[in-house]
Protein backbone atom coordinates (compact mmCIF):
# COMPACT_ATOMS: atom_id res chain seq x y z
CA UNK A 1 0.00 0.00 0.00
CA UNK A 2 1.30 3.43 -0.96
CA UNK A 3 1.60 6.36 1.47
CA UNK A 4 -0.04 9.56 0.18
CA UNK A 5 2.55 11.76 1.87
CA UNK A 6 5.94 10.17 1.16
CA UNK A 7 4.92 7.79 -1.68
CA UNK A 8 6.72 4.87 -0.01
CA UNK A 9 5.04 1.45 -0.17
CA UNK A 10 5.51 0.93 3.57
CA UNK A 11 1.93 1.70 4.59
CA UNK A 12 -0.07 -0.91 6.50
CA UNK A 13 -3.46 -1.29 8.16
CA UNK A 14 -3.30 0.16 11.68
CA UNK A 15 -6.80 -0.85 12.74
CA UNK A 16 -10.39 -1.39 11.63
CA UNK A 17 -13.49 0.36 12.95
CA UNK A 18 -14.61 -1.17 16.26
CA UNK A 19 -18.24 -1.19 15.01
CA UNK A 20 -19.73 -2.47 11.77
CA UNK A 21 -16.80 -2.60 9.34
CA UNK A 22 -17.29 1.13 8.65
CA UNK A 23 -13.68 1.94 7.76
CA UNK A 24 -10.00 1.08 8.15
CA UNK A 25 -7.14 3.27 9.35
CA UNK A 26 -3.76 3.08 7.62
CA UNK A 27 -0.33 4.23 8.75
CA UNK A 28 2.96 4.69 6.94
CA UNK A 29 5.90 3.02 8.69
CA UNK A 30 8.31 5.34 6.89
CA UNK A 31 6.87 8.83 7.67
CA UNK A 32 4.21 8.02 10.35
CA UNK A 33 1.35 9.57 8.33
CA UNK A 34 -2.03 8.01 9.12
CA UNK A 35 -5.42 8.28 7.46
CA UNK A 36 -8.87 6.71 7.33
CA UNK A 37 -10.27 4.88 4.32
CA UNK A 38 -13.34 7.16 4.29
CA UNK A 39 -11.24 10.36 4.01
CA UNK A 40 -10.53 12.26 0.80
CA UNK A 41 -6.78 12.76 1.30
CA UNK A 42 -5.10 15.64 -0.51
CA UNK A 43 -1.70 16.45 0.94
CA UNK A 44 -0.49 19.99 0.22
CA UNK A 45 2.76 20.03 -1.75
CA UNK A 46 4.49 21.81 1.16
CA UNK A 47 3.70 18.93 3.54
CA UNK A 48 4.87 16.10 1.21
CA UNK A 49 7.89 14.22 2.57
CA UNK A 50 10.86 12.43 1.04
CA UNK A 51 13.99 10.72 2.43
CA UNK A 52 16.01 13.91 2.34
CA UNK A 53 13.41 15.94 4.25
CA UNK A 54 13.06 13.19 6.86
CA UNK A 55 16.84 12.95 7.28
CA UNK A 56 17.18 16.72 7.78
CA UNK A 57 14.20 17.08 10.10
CA UNK A 58 14.73 18.90 13.41
CA UNK A 59 14.46 17.09 16.75
CA UNK A 60 12.32 18.22 19.69
CA UNK A 61 13.59 18.22 22.35
CA UNK A 62 17.27 17.45 21.67
CA UNK A 63 18.62 14.18 23.18
CA UNK A 64 21.00 14.98 26.08
CA UNK A 65 24.44 13.29 26.36
CA UNK A 66 24.46 10.02 28.36
CA UNK A 67 25.59 10.42 31.98
CA UNK A 68 27.89 7.74 33.33
Amino acid at each position, binding site marked *: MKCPRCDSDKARIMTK*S*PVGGAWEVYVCNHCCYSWRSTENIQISEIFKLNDEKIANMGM*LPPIPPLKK
Partner: protein
Amino acid sequence: MSKVYKDLREFLATLEEEGQLVRVKEEVMPEPDIGAAGRAAANLENSPAIFFEKVNGYKYSVVTNVHGSWYNHALMMGMPKQTPVKEQFFELNRRWDKFPVPPKILAREEALCKENVITENINLFDILPLYRINEQDGGFFLSKASVISGDPEFPEDLNKLNVGIYRMQVKDVDRLAIQPVPVHDIAIQLAKAEEKNEPLPVAIALGVSPLVTFMASAPVAYDQNEYEFVGALQDGVPCEIVKADTCDHLYVPAHAEVVIEGYIIPRQRFVEGPFGEFPGSYSGCCKQCEIQITRITHRTNPIFENLYIGMPWTETDYLVGLNTSIPLYKQIKATMPEVVAVNAMYTHGIGVIVSTKVRYGGYGKGVAFRLLSTPHGMPYSKIVIIVDEYVDPFNLEQVMWALTTRVKPGKDVVIIPNCPGMVLDPSSNPAGMHDKLIIDATTPVAPEPNPRSCEMLVPSPATPKWEEILRQLQSAAQKKQEGNRL
Protein backbone atom coordinates in the same frame (compact mmCIF):
# COMPACT_ATOMS: atom_id res chain seq x y z
CA MET B 1 -19.80 28.52 48.14
CA SER B 2 -19.75 28.39 44.36
CA LYS B 3 -20.52 25.23 42.41
CA VAL B 4 -17.74 22.61 42.24
CA TYR B 5 -17.71 19.78 39.68
CA LYS B 6 -16.19 16.48 40.70
CA ASP B 7 -15.88 15.31 37.10
CA LEU B 8 -16.57 16.24 33.49
CA ARG B 9 -20.10 14.77 33.55
CA GLU B 10 -21.28 17.08 36.34
CA PHE B 11 -19.99 20.06 34.38
CA LEU B 12 -21.68 18.92 31.16
CA ALA B 13 -24.97 18.60 33.08
CA THR B 14 -24.67 22.21 34.25
CA LEU B 15 -23.80 23.42 30.76
CA GLU B 16 -26.92 21.68 29.45
CA GLU B 17 -29.15 23.24 32.14
CA GLU B 18 -27.76 26.66 31.23
CA GLY B 19 -28.34 26.20 27.49
CA GLN B 20 -24.57 25.95 26.95
CA LEU B 21 -24.43 22.37 25.61
CA VAL B 22 -26.06 21.07 22.44
CA ARG B 23 -26.48 17.43 21.45
CA VAL B 24 -25.95 16.11 17.95
CA LYS B 25 -28.10 12.99 17.98
CA GLU B 26 -27.65 11.92 14.35
CA GLU B 27 -24.58 9.88 13.46
CA VAL B 28 -21.68 12.02 12.19
CA MET B 29 -18.54 11.06 10.27
CA PRO B 30 -15.28 11.45 12.23
CA GLU B 31 -14.00 13.50 9.26
CA PRO B 32 -14.78 16.20 8.42
CA ASP B 33 -17.73 16.65 10.81
CA ILE B 34 -16.19 16.87 14.29
CA GLY B 35 -13.36 19.23 13.31
CA ALA B 36 -15.71 21.35 11.20
CA ALA B 37 -18.24 21.64 14.03
CA GLY B 38 -15.47 22.71 16.41
CA ARG B 39 -14.45 25.42 13.96
CA ALA B 40 -18.08 26.48 13.50
CA ALA B 41 -18.62 26.75 17.25
CA ALA B 42 -15.59 29.04 17.48
CA ASN B 43 -17.19 31.30 14.86
CA LEU B 44 -20.33 31.86 16.98
CA GLU B 45 -20.77 34.04 20.04
CA ASN B 46 -21.30 32.54 23.50
CA SER B 47 -20.80 29.11 21.91
CA PRO B 48 -22.09 25.97 23.60
CA ALA B 49 -20.22 22.71 24.09
CA ILE B 50 -21.10 20.17 21.38
CA PHE B 51 -21.90 16.60 22.34
CA PHE B 52 -21.78 14.06 19.48
CA GLU B 53 -23.80 11.06 20.58
CA LYS B 54 -22.91 8.77 17.66
CA VAL B 55 -19.77 8.73 15.53
CA ASN B 56 -19.58 6.43 12.50
CA GLY B 57 -17.69 3.22 13.24
CA TYR B 58 -17.16 3.92 16.94
CA LYS B 59 -18.81 2.79 20.18
CA TYR B 60 -18.67 5.95 22.29
CA SER B 61 -19.36 9.69 22.18
CA VAL B 62 -17.29 12.87 21.78
CA VAL B 63 -17.62 16.30 23.37
CA THR B 64 -15.87 19.41 22.09
CA ASN B 65 -15.85 23.15 22.79
CA VAL B 66 -16.36 22.54 26.53
CA HIS B 67 -14.28 25.63 27.44
CA GLY B 68 -15.07 27.46 24.21
CA SER B 69 -16.84 30.67 25.36
CA TRP B 70 -16.76 33.18 28.21
CA TYR B 71 -20.16 31.81 29.27
CA ASN B 72 -18.74 28.31 29.69
CA HIS B 73 -15.65 29.76 31.36
CA ALA B 74 -17.77 31.57 33.95
CA LEU B 75 -19.81 28.39 34.58
CA MET B 76 -16.54 26.47 35.06
CA MET B 77 -15.89 28.79 38.01
CA GLY B 78 -19.44 28.40 39.30
CA MET B 79 -20.27 32.02 38.40
CA PRO B 80 -23.30 33.36 36.47
CA LYS B 81 -22.68 32.81 32.76
CA GLN B 82 -22.83 36.52 31.83
CA THR B 83 -20.01 37.47 34.25
CA PRO B 84 -17.71 39.97 32.45
CA VAL B 85 -14.15 38.82 31.71
CA LYS B 86 -12.52 41.36 34.01
CA GLU B 87 -14.69 40.14 36.93
CA GLN B 88 -13.73 36.53 36.16
CA PHE B 89 -10.08 37.70 36.23
CA PHE B 90 -10.43 39.24 39.70
CA GLU B 91 -12.34 36.21 41.06
CA LEU B 92 -9.63 33.85 39.78
CA ASN B 93 -7.07 36.16 41.29
CA ARG B 94 -8.81 35.95 44.68
CA ARG B 95 -9.04 32.14 44.67
CA TRP B 96 -5.46 31.77 43.40
CA ASP B 97 -4.24 33.03 46.81
CA LYS B 98 -5.76 29.95 48.50
CA PHE B 99 -2.97 27.85 46.96
CA PRO B 100 -1.94 25.31 48.15
CA VAL B 101 -5.04 23.18 48.89
CA PRO B 102 -3.78 19.56 49.22
CA PRO B 103 -5.68 17.12 47.00
CA LYS B 104 -7.74 14.28 48.48
CA ILE B 105 -6.23 10.90 47.62
CA LEU B 106 -8.99 8.32 47.10
CA ALA B 107 -8.76 4.56 47.48
CA ARG B 108 -8.69 2.75 44.14
CA GLU B 109 -12.24 1.41 44.55
CA GLU B 110 -13.61 4.94 45.10
CA ALA B 111 -12.15 6.22 41.82
CA LEU B 112 -14.56 6.02 38.89
CA CYS B 113 -11.69 6.08 36.36
CA LYS B 114 -10.82 2.53 37.50
CA GLU B 115 -14.18 0.96 36.54
CA ASN B 116 -12.68 -0.84 33.52
CA VAL B 117 -9.14 -2.02 32.90
CA ILE B 118 -7.45 -2.96 29.62
CA THR B 119 -4.00 -4.53 29.70
CA GLU B 120 -4.08 -6.79 26.64
CA ASN B 121 -4.71 -6.04 22.97
CA ILE B 122 -4.67 -2.35 23.78
CA ASN B 123 -6.35 -0.35 21.02
CA LEU B 124 -7.12 3.35 21.54
CA PHE B 125 -9.76 3.22 18.79
CA ASP B 126 -11.87 0.82 20.91
CA ILE B 127 -12.26 3.50 23.61
CA LEU B 128 -11.78 6.88 21.88
CA PRO B 129 -13.58 8.08 18.72
CA LEU B 130 -10.36 9.48 17.24
CA TYR B 131 -10.59 11.96 14.36
CA ARG B 132 -8.51 14.39 12.31
CA ILE B 133 -8.92 17.95 13.63
CA ASN B 134 -7.59 19.96 10.65
CA GLU B 135 -7.19 18.76 7.08
CA GLN B 136 -3.40 18.77 6.84
CA ASP B 137 -2.74 17.31 10.29
CA GLY B 138 -0.36 14.33 10.10
CA GLY B 139 -2.85 12.06 11.89
CA PHE B 140 -5.45 11.95 14.66
CA PHE B 141 -4.54 14.10 17.67
CA LEU B 142 -5.40 14.31 21.37
CA SER B 143 -5.50 18.09 21.88
CA LYS B 144 -6.89 18.29 25.39
CA ALA B 145 -5.22 15.52 27.40
CA SER B 146 -3.67 16.18 30.81
CA VAL B 147 -0.27 14.47 30.96
CA ILE B 148 1.00 13.59 34.43
CA SER B 149 4.72 12.97 35.00
CA GLY B 150 7.17 12.99 37.91
CA ASP B 151 10.75 14.08 38.47
CA PRO B 152 13.01 10.99 38.10
CA GLU B 153 15.47 12.54 40.56
CA PHE B 154 12.82 13.25 43.24
CA PRO B 155 9.97 10.81 42.47
CA GLU B 156 8.37 11.11 45.92
CA ASP B 157 8.25 14.93 45.81
CA LEU B 158 4.65 15.67 44.89
CA ASN B 159 5.48 19.36 44.39
CA LYS B 160 7.49 18.27 41.36
CA LEU B 161 4.62 16.17 39.96
CA ASN B 162 3.66 17.90 36.74
CA VAL B 163 0.24 18.01 35.07
CA GLY B 164 0.42 19.61 31.64
CA ILE B 165 -1.34 19.62 28.29
CA TYR B 166 0.85 18.56 25.39
CA ARG B 167 -0.39 17.77 21.93
CA MET B 168 -0.29 14.06 21.15
CA GLN B 169 -0.49 12.32 17.79
CA VAL B 170 -1.88 8.80 17.64
CA LYS B 171 0.95 6.82 16.02
CA ASP B 172 -0.46 3.32 16.47
CA VAL B 173 -3.20 1.52 18.40
CA ASP B 174 -0.97 1.59 21.50
CA ARG B 175 1.47 4.42 20.77
CA LEU B 176 1.29 8.21 21.02
CA ALA B 177 3.70 10.96 20.03
CA ILE B 178 4.21 13.74 22.55
CA GLN B 179 5.64 17.22 22.11
CA PRO B 180 7.68 18.26 25.16
CA VAL B 181 8.78 21.79 24.15
CA PRO B 182 12.07 22.62 25.95
CA VAL B 183 10.48 25.57 27.85
CA HIS B 184 7.87 23.25 29.44
CA ASP B 185 8.22 21.32 32.71
CA ILE B 186 8.04 17.79 31.32
CA ALA B 187 11.15 18.47 29.19
CA ILE B 188 13.19 18.91 32.41
CA GLN B 189 12.00 15.50 33.65
CA LEU B 190 12.53 13.83 30.30
CA ALA B 191 16.12 15.13 30.09
CA LYS B 192 16.89 13.59 33.51
CA ALA B 193 15.49 10.21 32.37
CA GLU B 194 17.22 10.30 28.98
CA GLU B 195 20.62 11.15 30.50
CA LYS B 196 20.38 7.70 32.14
CA ASN B 197 18.67 6.05 29.17
CA GLU B 198 15.62 5.30 31.32
CA PRO B 199 11.96 5.45 30.30
CA LEU B 200 9.89 8.28 31.82
CA PRO B 201 6.58 6.93 33.19
CA VAL B 202 3.52 9.01 32.27
CA ALA B 203 -0.23 8.88 32.81
CA ILE B 204 -2.62 10.67 30.48
CA ALA B 205 -6.05 11.74 31.74
CA LEU B 206 -8.85 12.51 29.27
CA GLY B 207 -12.23 13.99 30.16
CA VAL B 208 -11.61 15.59 33.56
CA SER B 209 -13.32 18.29 35.62
CA PRO B 210 -12.90 21.64 33.83
CA LEU B 211 -10.61 23.27 36.38
CA VAL B 212 -8.11 20.38 36.08
CA THR B 213 -7.80 21.08 32.35
CA PHE B 214 -7.62 24.79 33.15
CA MET B 215 -4.69 24.32 35.57
CA ALA B 216 -2.95 21.75 33.35
CA SER B 217 -2.68 24.45 30.68
CA ALA B 218 -1.57 27.20 33.11
CA PRO B 219 2.11 28.25 33.24
CA VAL B 220 2.81 27.75 36.98
CA ALA B 221 6.26 27.19 38.51
CA TYR B 222 8.04 23.83 38.25
CA ASP B 223 7.70 23.02 41.96
CA GLN B 224 4.02 23.98 42.20
CA ASN B 225 1.57 21.07 42.08
CA GLU B 226 -1.34 21.76 39.72
CA TYR B 227 -3.78 19.67 41.83
CA GLU B 228 -3.16 22.03 44.78
CA PHE B 229 -4.14 24.90 42.50
CA VAL B 230 -7.33 23.11 41.43
CA GLY B 231 -8.33 22.96 45.11
CA ALA B 232 -7.64 26.69 45.42
CA LEU B 233 -9.71 27.54 42.33
CA GLN B 234 -12.50 25.31 43.71
CA ASP B 235 -12.47 27.85 46.54
CA GLY B 236 -10.86 25.43 48.99
CA VAL B 237 -12.56 22.18 47.95
CA PRO B 238 -9.78 19.58 47.39
CA CYS B 239 -9.30 17.96 44.00
CA GLU B 240 -9.84 14.17 44.12
CA ILE B 241 -6.98 12.07 42.81
CA VAL B 242 -5.93 8.44 42.82
CA LYS B 243 -2.65 6.59 42.35
CA ALA B 244 -1.86 5.36 38.86
CA ASP B 245 -1.89 1.55 38.50
CA THR B 246 1.53 1.19 36.88
CA CYS B 247 3.58 3.81 38.74
CA ASP B 248 3.58 4.56 42.47
CA HIS B 249 4.48 8.24 42.23
CA LEU B 250 1.92 9.29 39.60
CA TYR B 251 -1.55 10.46 40.62
CA VAL B 252 -4.44 11.01 38.19
CA PRO B 253 -7.81 12.79 38.54
CA ALA B 254 -9.95 10.13 40.24
CA HIS B 255 -13.01 10.47 38.01
CA ALA B 256 -11.38 10.99 34.61
CA GLU B 257 -13.24 9.41 31.70
CA VAL B 258 -10.10 7.63 30.44
CA VAL B 259 -6.60 7.17 31.87
CA ILE B 260 -3.82 5.98 29.57
CA GLU B 261 -0.66 4.76 31.31
CA GLY B 262 2.73 4.10 29.78
CA TYR B 263 6.19 5.56 29.36
CA ILE B 264 8.16 7.82 27.06
CA ILE B 265 10.64 5.70 25.11
CA PRO B 266 14.08 7.16 25.91
CA ARG B 267 16.57 8.53 23.38
CA GLN B 268 14.40 7.96 20.31
CA ARG B 269 12.58 10.43 18.08
CA PHE B 270 10.03 9.82 15.32
CA VAL B 271 8.30 11.99 12.72
CA GLU B 272 5.43 13.99 14.26
CA GLY B 273 3.05 16.50 12.68
CA PRO B 274 2.17 18.68 10.98
CA PHE B 275 -0.54 20.02 13.27
CA GLY B 276 -2.80 23.09 13.05
CA GLU B 277 -1.75 25.21 16.02
CA PHE B 278 -3.01 28.15 18.08
CA PRO B 279 -1.36 30.91 15.97
CA GLY B 280 -3.73 29.91 13.14
CA SER B 281 -1.11 28.16 11.02
CA TYR B 282 0.29 24.64 10.76
CA SER B 283 3.45 23.81 12.64
CA GLY B 284 5.54 21.55 10.41
CA CYS B 285 6.96 18.07 10.92
CA CYS B 286 9.63 17.43 13.49
CA LYS B 287 11.15 14.34 15.13
CA GLN B 288 9.61 13.93 18.57
CA CYS B 289 9.20 11.43 21.41
CA GLU B 290 6.78 8.54 21.55
CA ILE B 291 4.86 7.00 24.43
CA GLN B 292 4.38 3.23 24.67
CA ILE B 293 0.97 2.55 26.22
CA THR B 294 0.90 -0.32 28.74
CA ARG B 295 -2.54 0.04 30.33
CA ILE B 296 -5.86 1.86 29.93
CA THR B 297 -8.45 2.34 32.67
CA HIS B 298 -11.76 4.00 31.90
CA ARG B 299 -15.28 4.72 33.08
CA THR B 300 -18.16 2.78 31.61
CA ASN B 301 -19.39 4.54 28.44
CA PRO B 302 -16.44 6.96 28.37
CA ILE B 303 -16.81 10.40 26.79
CA PHE B 304 -13.90 11.58 24.62
CA GLU B 305 -13.21 15.25 25.35
CA ASN B 306 -11.09 16.97 22.70
CA LEU B 307 -10.79 20.52 21.39
CA TYR B 308 -10.64 22.32 18.06
CA ILE B 309 -7.56 24.51 17.57
CA GLY B 310 -6.75 26.89 14.75
CA MET B 311 -7.21 30.49 13.66
CA PRO B 312 -7.97 32.47 16.87
CA TRP B 313 -10.32 32.63 18.59
CA THR B 314 -10.99 28.96 19.24
CA GLU B 315 -11.61 26.89 22.37
CA THR B 316 -7.86 26.98 23.10
CA ASP B 317 -7.87 30.76 23.38
CA TYR B 318 -10.67 30.72 25.96
CA LEU B 319 -8.93 27.89 27.85
CA VAL B 320 -5.53 29.60 28.12
CA GLY B 321 -6.69 33.24 28.18
CA LEU B 322 -7.04 33.92 31.90
CA ASN B 323 -4.87 31.06 33.17
CA THR B 324 -1.98 32.73 31.34
CA SER B 325 -2.92 36.22 32.55
CA ILE B 326 -3.23 35.41 36.28
CA PRO B 327 0.25 33.94 36.92
CA LEU B 328 1.84 36.78 34.96
CA TYR B 329 -0.14 39.26 37.04
CA LYS B 330 0.85 37.54 40.30
CA GLN B 331 4.51 37.41 39.34
CA ILE B 332 4.71 41.09 38.35
CA LYS B 333 2.50 42.28 41.22
CA ALA B 334 4.83 40.60 43.76
CA THR B 335 7.51 43.22 43.09
CA MET B 336 5.43 46.00 41.47
CA PRO B 337 2.24 46.59 43.51
CA GLU B 338 1.26 49.44 41.15
CA VAL B 339 0.16 46.87 38.52
CA VAL B 340 -3.67 46.69 38.30
CA ALA B 341 -4.40 43.89 35.80
CA VAL B 342 -2.73 41.84 33.05
CA ASN B 343 -4.41 40.76 29.83
CA ALA B 344 -2.27 38.02 28.26
CA MET B 345 -5.14 36.52 26.29
CA TYR B 346 -3.90 37.19 22.79
CA THR B 347 -2.33 34.19 21.04
CA HIS B 348 -1.33 32.55 24.34
CA GLY B 349 0.43 35.64 25.68
CA ILE B 350 2.40 36.56 22.54
CA GLY B 351 0.52 39.85 22.89
CA VAL B 352 0.10 41.30 26.41
CA ILE B 353 -1.56 44.45 27.76
CA VAL B 354 -0.72 45.57 31.31
CA SER B 355 -2.49 48.36 33.18
CA THR B 356 -0.46 50.02 35.91
CA LYS B 357 -0.08 53.12 37.98
CA VAL B 358 3.14 54.92 37.01
CA ARG B 359 5.17 55.43 40.19
CA TYR B 360 7.88 57.56 38.55
CA GLY B 361 8.97 58.55 35.06
CA GLY B 362 9.63 55.55 32.77
CA TYR B 363 7.93 53.06 35.14
CA GLY B 364 5.77 51.70 32.31
CA LYS B 365 8.86 50.39 30.53
CA GLY B 366 10.07 48.87 33.83
CA VAL B 367 6.81 46.91 34.07
CA ALA B 368 7.41 45.63 30.54
CA PHE B 369 10.95 44.51 31.51
CA ARG B 370 9.54 42.63 34.48
CA LEU B 371 6.95 40.90 32.25
CA LEU B 372 9.70 39.96 29.81
CA SER B 373 11.68 38.22 32.56
CA THR B 374 8.85 36.00 33.89
CA PRO B 375 8.91 32.26 33.04
CA HIS B 376 6.11 32.57 30.44
CA GLY B 377 6.64 36.17 29.33
CA MET B 378 10.32 35.77 28.49
CA PRO B 379 9.87 33.31 25.63
CA TYR B 380 6.23 33.99 24.64
CA SER B 381 5.49 37.71 24.94
CA LYS B 382 6.52 39.65 21.85
CA ILE B 383 4.27 42.72 21.81
CA VAL B 384 3.80 44.40 25.19
CA ILE B 385 1.47 47.38 25.65
CA ILE B 386 1.46 49.26 28.96
CA VAL B 387 -1.56 51.45 29.80
CA ASP B 388 -2.54 53.65 32.77
CA GLU B 389 -4.27 52.25 35.85
CA TYR B 390 -7.72 53.54 34.80
CA VAL B 391 -7.63 51.80 31.39
CA ASP B 392 -9.30 48.33 31.35
CA PRO B 393 -6.74 46.11 29.57
CA PHE B 394 -9.54 43.68 28.64
CA ASN B 395 -11.38 46.45 26.78
CA LEU B 396 -9.64 46.87 23.44
CA GLU B 397 -11.56 50.08 22.66
CA GLN B 398 -10.01 51.66 25.73
CA VAL B 399 -6.58 50.25 24.83
CA MET B 400 -6.87 51.72 21.33
CA TRP B 401 -7.74 55.06 22.96
CA ALA B 402 -4.57 54.84 25.03
CA LEU B 403 -2.49 54.00 21.94
CA THR B 404 -3.92 56.91 19.96
CA THR B 405 -3.72 59.55 22.70
CA ARG B 406 -0.76 58.51 24.88
CA VAL B 407 1.89 57.16 22.52
CA LYS B 408 4.63 59.39 21.12
CA PRO B 409 6.35 56.80 18.89
CA GLY B 410 9.77 58.49 19.03
CA LYS B 411 10.14 57.79 22.77
CA ASP B 412 7.37 55.32 23.68
CA VAL B 413 7.97 52.56 21.12
CA VAL B 414 11.05 50.39 21.64
CA ILE B 415 12.32 47.34 19.75
CA ILE B 416 14.80 44.97 21.42
CA PRO B 417 16.29 42.59 18.86
CA ASN B 418 17.31 38.93 19.20
CA CYS B 419 15.46 37.85 22.35
CA PRO B 420 14.00 34.50 23.48
CA GLY B 421 10.95 33.57 21.41
CA MET B 422 8.37 30.81 20.96
CA VAL B 423 8.85 28.21 18.21
CA LEU B 424 5.16 28.09 17.29
CA ASP B 425 5.13 31.85 16.53
CA PRO B 426 5.50 31.69 12.75
CA SER B 427 7.22 35.09 12.73
CA SER B 428 10.02 33.93 15.04
CA ASN B 429 13.24 33.55 13.07
CA PRO B 430 15.18 31.46 13.78
CA ALA B 431 12.19 29.54 15.18
CA GLY B 432 12.25 30.20 18.91
CA MET B 433 13.81 33.68 18.73
CA HIS B 434 12.15 37.02 18.10
CA ASP B 435 12.46 40.77 18.70
CA LYS B 436 10.46 42.38 21.51
CA LEU B 437 8.21 45.39 20.94
CA ILE B 438 7.33 47.56 23.94
CA ILE B 439 4.70 50.28 23.61
CA ASP B 440 4.45 52.57 26.62
CA ALA B 441 0.94 54.04 26.36
CA THR B 442 0.94 55.59 29.85
CA THR B 443 0.74 59.30 30.66
CA PRO B 444 4.21 60.82 31.33
CA VAL B 445 5.07 61.19 35.04
CA ALA B 446 7.95 63.27 36.51
CA PRO B 447 10.86 63.39 35.99
CA GLU B 448 9.70 62.64 32.44
CA PRO B 449 8.58 66.00 31.00
CA ASN B 450 4.99 66.28 29.85
CA PRO B 451 5.11 69.54 27.91
CA ARG B 452 1.44 69.51 26.85
CA SER B 453 -1.10 69.40 29.62
CA CYS B 454 -4.33 67.58 28.81
CA GLU B 455 -7.44 68.22 30.80
CA MET B 456 -9.43 64.97 31.15
CA LEU B 457 -13.20 65.13 30.72
CA VAL B 458 -15.06 64.28 33.91
CA PRO B 459 -18.57 62.82 33.57
CA SER B 460 -21.45 64.66 35.22
CA PRO B 461 -22.34 63.24 38.66
CA ALA B 462 -25.84 62.61 37.29
CA THR B 463 -24.55 60.10 34.71
CA PRO B 464 -25.13 56.88 36.76
CA LYS B 465 -28.72 57.98 37.49
CA TRP B 466 -29.30 58.46 33.76
CA GLU B 467 -27.69 55.10 32.92
CA GLU B 468 -30.33 53.44 35.10
CA ILE B 469 -33.20 55.47 33.58
CA LEU B 470 -32.09 54.61 30.05
CA ARG B 471 -31.69 50.92 30.91
CA GLN B 472 -35.28 50.79 32.16
CA LEU B 473 -36.64 52.68 29.16
CA GLN B 474 -34.76 50.39 26.79
CA SER B 475 -36.00 47.26 28.53
CA ALA B 476 -39.62 48.55 28.38
CA ALA B 477 -39.20 49.38 24.69
CA GLN B 478 -37.85 45.87 23.96
CA LYS B 479 -40.75 44.24 25.84
CA LYS B 480 -43.24 46.30 23.87
CA GLN B 481 -41.63 45.26 20.60
CA GLU B 482 -41.74 41.57 21.60
CA GLY B 483 -45.45 42.02 22.48
CA ASN B 484 -46.13 43.48 19.03
CA ARG B 485 -44.42 40.50 17.38
CA LEU B 486 -46.70 38.06 19.22
